[in-house]
């Protein structure tokens, strides 16, 4: 076993150990065992960082990959299949290494932060236990080498999310939110599960690599539509977990959980798992599936951004912003900007975690006030929070010199390239929605910064009943300091400040790339190159059978997955196969990357990569304009007050309400699926009790009737017949016994009589 595998197993199991210790013994440990959680997570991060260092920094090999597995279930010699084993295993490649470091770092920082934020909570120890099982499950997703185990960990993060959203389960809103989150995720999961089933039914394996190899070899016997369906269904898992339209409704409600949880699970890691998963299966997605993914991502990014602009709850704004940013990542994968999407996943994780922890610091300092309308002027009181929050906001809005700028720009460049390569038309909707959402992002974040940190404190403006409500909703938090006046707001302690600073520092461009304008020059996008598809876009084009493209892809796959060609040999090979495959494609598309990004034998991927590269500068210009527009708008409305936001809202009231009420999705689902299910369940239950059981009882009653009837029949007819028979023989016996005299003479007479009777009979027969 490779030493990195051993370390990764330790990384996986350490948080589980933390969970086990804390769930059973937290009340017996000093400080409720928080040091166990923080310490173990620190060690986990150290080990993960070692893996990251060895894999990404030292080896610096884009096709690095090691794997290990063991037999989990042995089915023996299965008829029709042969020996069948279900294996579990670990795979470490560059993506895994980066994700490990990212997840454990944020988890560690959130653990540390929680020692301040959650202090005094009656279930303080349990909180750290739950964080432990979450981290374990999340690392399981990252390390999985097969679909079955990723599904297991997928649902386990769902469980952790359920437990943590409902951490304050006494609140009905929290209990509702946790149930909603679990069920919405389950809906996505059944899709994902069906996708897994499609692939398993073909290849009898869950292992990514084996599935890809089989696909590349063209062993998929079902129709092309099933393969597309498999991709879309697997993507449904991401729709649930990454809160994509139409299953996004759970994520904003999940903000009922403690704020550190929102940062760790519902912003940085778990919700990004959907994107990570789509990246893992990226190579088997057909063109049609990718189109679906791209549109879902674009719609999500746009819709969530429009909702975020009118929300008043500081965490809800961030929640919708998270949905929107996840939409960007999904969009990025859909358009084939694989590296960019994953780049955005990582940059977003850091700056969004920073924003949530910052909002947590604000909420903590404001004594559990979450409504931005009653904040303001916090800049002076909380300078550290202000500085880090602002830096992270700039990254989210996508201003140059930040990490978010680079990654978002790369996605948008990919989107333009995709639309160009696909021949335009409706595909331009995707980059359009992307850029428009970028503007909205800049606007709502500008609004948030202004409302929270600038101006004067508006605490006194809060209506009394609303204040009461605020207390009630968040009162179960175990703090006794609600009565303090708000001018008692002060900066948070070091254990909450340090995570903010670290996360804000990771939002600066220099961490990822020397060129602030081009993420592709940085280490990240070099280390995470876009892999070559194994299903081939040629399948979408009529004349070329899937087989030839698949064959080529297979050849490449055998060399390296993810396949990247930089050596002269591979280049030559690429050109060779490309010329076989491509007839109608533009010749320039066939894989002459100018030392910039990967090259593809697949003509569609090659074309998109080429177009995206060309669109890079255009994307920078447009997105910068959009960001400036958005920020200017925010300044105009909230700083210079040229436009009164309230009056504007009244002027466009239907639009405002549409946004404020989150496009009415909750109401729509409530009226259709939830009501529908309850009605169906009531109807079926009635049917069960009255019709099915009615028939049973009816049959019972009928049997009783028949029983009584046969009883009567038995008594009078059957028994009567028996009695009659007895009576008959009795009587006839009494008569006949008189003949049995025992005297021979009588018998002789009788015999004679009989003979005479016989003769008479005989002669009458003769006559007639």
């Amino acid at each position, binding site marked *: 076993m490779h030493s990195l595998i051993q370390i990764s197993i330790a990384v996986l199991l350490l948080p589980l150990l933390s969970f086990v210790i804390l769930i059973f013994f937290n009340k017996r440990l000093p400080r409720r065992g928080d040091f166990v959680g923080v310490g173990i997570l620190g060690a986990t991060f150290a080990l993960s960082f070692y893996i990251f260092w060895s894999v990404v920094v030292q080896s610096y090999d884009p096709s690095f990959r090691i794997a290990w597995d063991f037999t*989990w*279930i*042995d*089915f*023996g*010699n*299965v*008829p*029709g*299949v042969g020996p*069948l084993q279900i294996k579990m295993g670990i795979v470490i490649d560059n993506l895994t290494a980066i994700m490990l470091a990212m997840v454990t770092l944020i988890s560690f920082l959130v653990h540390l932060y929680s020692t301040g934020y959650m202090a005094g909570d009656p279930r303080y120890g349990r909180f750290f236990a739950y964080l432990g099982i979450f981290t374990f499950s999340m690392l399981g997703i990252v390390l999985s080498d097969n679909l*079955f185990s990723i*599904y*297991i*960990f*997928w*649902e*386990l993060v769902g*469980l952790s999310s359920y437990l943590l959203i*409902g951490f304050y*389960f*006494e*609140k*009905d809103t*929290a*209990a*509702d939110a946790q*149930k909603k989150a*679990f*069920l919405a995720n*389950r*809906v996505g*999961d*059944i899709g994902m*599960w*069906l996708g897994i*089933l*499609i692939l*398993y*039914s073909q290849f*009898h394996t869950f292992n990514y690599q084996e599935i890809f190899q089989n696909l590349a070899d063209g062993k998929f016997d079902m129709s092309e539509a099933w393969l597309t369906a498999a991709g879309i269904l697997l993507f449904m898992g991401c729709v649930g977990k990454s809160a994509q339209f139409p299953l996004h409704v759970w994520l904003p409600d999940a903000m009922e959980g403690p704020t550190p949880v929102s940062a760790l699970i519902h912003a940085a890691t778990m919700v990004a798992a959907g994107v990570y998963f789509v990246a893992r299966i990226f190579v088997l997605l057909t063109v049609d599936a990718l189109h679906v993914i791209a549109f879902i991502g674009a719609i999500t990014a746009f819709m969530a951004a429009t909702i975020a602009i009118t929300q008043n709850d500081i965490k809800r704004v961030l929640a919708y912003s998270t949905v929107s940013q996840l939409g960007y990542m999904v969009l990025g994968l859909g358009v084939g900007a694989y590296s960019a999407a994953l780049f955005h996943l990582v940059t977003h994780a850091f700056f969004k975690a920073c924003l949530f922890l910052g909002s947590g610091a604000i909420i903590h300092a404001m004594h559990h006030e979450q409504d931005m309308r009653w904040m303001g002027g916090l800049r002076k009181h909380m300078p550290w929070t202000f500085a880090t929050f602002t830096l992270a906001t700039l990254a989210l809005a996508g201003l140059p010199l930040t990490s978010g700028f680079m990654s978002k720009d790369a996605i948008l460049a990919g989107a333009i390239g995709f639309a160009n390569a696909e021949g335009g038309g409706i595909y331009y909707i995707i980059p359009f929605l992307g850029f428009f959402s970028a503007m909205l992002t800049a606007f709502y974040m500008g609004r948030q910064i202004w409302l929270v940190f600038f101006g004067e404190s508006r605490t006194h403006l809060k209506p009394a009943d609303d204040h009461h409500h605020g207390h009630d909703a968040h009162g179960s938090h175990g703090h006794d300091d609600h009565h303090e006046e708000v001018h008692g707001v002060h900066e948070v302690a070091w254990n909450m400040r340090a995570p903010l600073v670290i996360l804000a520092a990771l939002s600066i461009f220099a961490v990822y790339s020397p060129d602030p304008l081009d993420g592709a020059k940085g280490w990240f996008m070099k280390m995470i190159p876009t892999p070559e598809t194994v299903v081939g876009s040629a399948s979408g084009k009529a004349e070329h059978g899937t087989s030839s493209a698949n064959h080529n892809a297979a050849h490449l796959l055998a060399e390296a997955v993810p396949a990247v060609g930089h050596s002269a040999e591979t280049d030559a090979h690429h050109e060779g196969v490309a010329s076989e495959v491509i007839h109608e494609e533009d010749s320039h598309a066939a894989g002459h990357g100018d030392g910039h990004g990967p090259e593809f034998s697949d003509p569609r991927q090659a074309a998109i990569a080429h177009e995206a590269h060309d669109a890079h500068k255009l994307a920078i210009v447009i997105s910068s304009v959009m960001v400036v527009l958005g920020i200017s708008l925010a300044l105009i409305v909230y700083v210079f007050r040229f436009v009164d936001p309230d009056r504007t809202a009244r002027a466009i009231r239907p639009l405002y309400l549409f946004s404020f009420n989150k496009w009415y999705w909750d109401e729509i689902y409530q009226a259709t699926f939830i009501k529908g*299910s*309850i009605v*169906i*369940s*009531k109807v*079926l*239950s009635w049917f*069960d009790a009255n019709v*099915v*059981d009615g*028939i*049973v009882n009816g049959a*019972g009653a009928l049997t009783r009737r028949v029983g009584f009837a046969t009883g009567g029949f038995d008594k009078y007819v059957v028994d009567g017949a028996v009695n009659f028979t007895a009576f008959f023989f009795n009587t006839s016996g009494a008569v006949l016994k008189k003949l049995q005299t025992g005297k021979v003479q009588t018998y002789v007479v009788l015999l004679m009589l009989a003979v005479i009777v016989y003769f008479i009979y005989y002669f009458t027969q003769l006559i007639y």
Partner: protein
Amino acid sequence: MLSLIVFLPIIAGLVILAVPSSQKQIIRIVSLLAALAQCVLAVLIWQGYDAALPGITAAAGGAPEGSFQFIERLPWISLDLGSFGSLNIEYFLGVDGLSITMVILTALISAIGILSSWPIQKQVKGYFILYNLLSTAMMGCFVALDFFLFYVFWELMLLPMYFLIGIWGGPNREYAAIKFFLYTLFGSVFMLLVMIGLYFSVIDPVTGNHTFSLVAMASQENYIKDAILGPDSVMWRYVAFIVLFIGFAIKVPMFPFHTWLPDAHVEAPTPISVILAGVLLKLGTYGMMRINFPLFPEVFQASLFVIGVLGAINIIYGAFCALAQQDLKKMVAYSSISHMGYVLLGLAAANSEGMVGALYQMFNHGTITAMLFLLVGVIYDRAHTRQIDKFGGLASYMPVYAAVVTIAWFASLGLPGLSGFISEAFVFVGAFSAETTRYIAIVSVLGIVFGAAYLLWSLQRMFLGKRKPDAAYDLEVGPDGHEHIHFHDWKGKLDLDTRELVMLVPLAVIVIFLGIYPMPVMGLMTSSINKLVEVLSPVVMTALN
């Protein structure tokens, strides 16, 4: 060994017969000891079991040795019927991969049921005698390899069950007991006819006589070609299959023959519900796997789609009905119907993944449902009500109970990491891989969502939030400022007491362990299932013709 494990409870019952009925504690302890000895024997059998041997049919040469294990075989009833030939009934026991898991499950659930029976005060002596009789009958059913002997044990179960529900049950117990009794009897009458028909159609290859041996019956070459249920008698074989299937389906219980189950559960005392859901229901699907399908493989192959559809109806219909229930126990009863649907679906897949999933689901459903009913019993003992709306916020006041409930509930909704998930997963894997049941599997996954819906909803209504205004308990604020709750006339410990923990913790450990590493149980069944799939496969049948 098998005789011992089957008849130990009856021996305990005879001992109890000699104990005066005032000595309640001795009666309980004797029963518990017998049940624990049964568990020990089950472990010994498990240890001595060679998982490589296939079972299902005889080994090459027609003898069961080398295929089945722990065989005990004696002539039992031999009658010369003149021109009808002779009647040879054997005392024939043995285990293979199908039955060994069920033997382990039965021993485990019986022991837990005894613990759960501890608080019963009404006619303790009679109760435990009947309980032990039931225990013997169940175990006997799983290890009998002679159809007649199986039938005897099968019928023997009815009697104690009838009285256990009818005497120790709830207010409407007599209705429930008679419904259970008649329903099951209805199914078994036809089984008797089929059994006799089979007897005259099958020849034991070793002795050349007619036989009730299920081992001989499982090989189609042992059938007389022109007999009533021989290969040429297509129509009668269909009739026999359907009749047997209905007989077993009633036990499962399969829609539309399921309505006895919610009534029986609602009325039955907790331990009887545990036995009923934990073991008895499995006899239905076990009977299908042991008798119904391998004896009529060609009819089975022709019925796959129908069986799959019926399984899917069970899954979804059961889940919807569970969603509507107000009585917690009724909800759990409908969840049983839903979960047994997965077994039917897995069987309809007719491949190894599906059938292993089905058999594993039988085991897991046994342990998980036992937990569910025990947990329902815990709250019913305290509150004397099971109305879901009469609670609220229990997680704050009974944290240990809430934790165990959470484990059981999540196990039931198929959370990965807990055993129920693996069995359901492989049922789906199998059902989707088989083309006949592919679309049925696609529809049935809805059961995963609705299963989660009714379980999480009940969890929320009972355990989360705050106390409801009309809750079945009072809220008191102690001197330390902490809130406590108080049930009327409940003198015991508020949270789980030791006896309850002793019942629940082993089950929880099993559920978690088998969810992480299923091979200790799954490994027992794979070679038998592979053999069963082979016996049932159309390829083998065409080779015969």
